[in-house]
């Protein structure tokens, strides 16, 4: 009867937990997307152990390690920004998110140099050197470009998500008692970090 009235008297309906569960459900689909690729990697590596070890020598452990450190640090800044907004310090929260975006840019610049060097050596699928590689090594580089490329795409998507969060913080729409969007952006960013945590040893650390 006067149900409508009661509802409109209330603030906008919010269910932060449902929102978070929704985000996690989306993350599961991401996990299985990369999971399928990890499965392909594992099978082919098992069938071509020596070729994978040889091909992996081409990758720079130093570059991979630096990017791992960069991503782990960016995960820290995101986590800190969420605890900062809870403490009602939106300015600090924003700065920490900007720092995250800078770290994301550092990651992408490293990736650019890394890929450029490989492409310069003709290792991108379809290039002459790639076509002459033994099948196992070609598979390694195919998976390397595909999986790190897909991961880099996720870095871009995560950066856009964080950009949206910064804009909402600017408008005051995210605040100390309403920050679920920021938490969800954080969850996405951490997932991208977790995927890299597996990509790093599987591609760079086979000797």
């Amino acid at each position, binding site marked *: 009867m006067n149900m409508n009235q009661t509802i409109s008297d209330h603030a906008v309906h919010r269910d932060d937990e449902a929102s978070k569960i929704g985000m996690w459900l989306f993350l599961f689909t991401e996990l299985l997307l990369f999971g399928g690729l990890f499965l392909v990697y594992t099978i082919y590596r098992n069938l071509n152990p020596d070729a994978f070890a040889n091909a992996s020598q081409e990758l720079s452990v130093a570059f991979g390690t630096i990017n791992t450190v960069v991503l782990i640090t960016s995960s820290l800044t995101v986590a800190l920004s969420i605890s900062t907004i809870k403490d009602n310090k939106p300015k600090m929260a924003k700065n920490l998110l900007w720092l995250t975006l800078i770290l994301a840019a550092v990651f992408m610049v490293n990736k650019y140099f890394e890929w450029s060097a490989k492409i310069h050596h003709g290792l991108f699928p379809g290039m002459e050197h790639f076509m002459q590689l033994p099948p196992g090594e070609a598979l390694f580089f195919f998976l390397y470009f595909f999986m790190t490329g897909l991961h880099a795409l996720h870095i871009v998507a995560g950066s856009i998500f964080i950009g949206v969060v910064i804009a909402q913080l600017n408008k005051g729409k995210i605040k100390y008692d309403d920050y679920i969007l920021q938490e969800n952006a954080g969850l996405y960013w951490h997932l991208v970090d*977790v995927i890299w945590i597996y990509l*790093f040893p599987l591609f760079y650390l086979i000797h």
Partner: protein
Amino acid sequence: MENNHSHSISNKTYIGIWIGLLILTFLSVEASFVQFRAFAVGVALFIATAKAFIVAYYFMHLKFDSKIISIMVLVTGVVFLTFIILTFFDYAFREPIV
């Protein structure tokens, strides 16, 4: 409703977790130069999984959020592991590919 403010992690703890993750990263790089061929993949995946667990438990707040989310993560993990194990059974009992 109680907000989970009181349950959140202090900044100091976050930085400690970050240092722990960095140590694990360098450990896994160092381990890769030691020649224990047979265990190399196992060691790398063990360290990676430890790192992923730390990120999920602390950074992704599984420790503080409703248990239902942890259960969902566990179920997804089991589903994924099942896929891997079943696929490996297939390859283990197949005629070798020429």
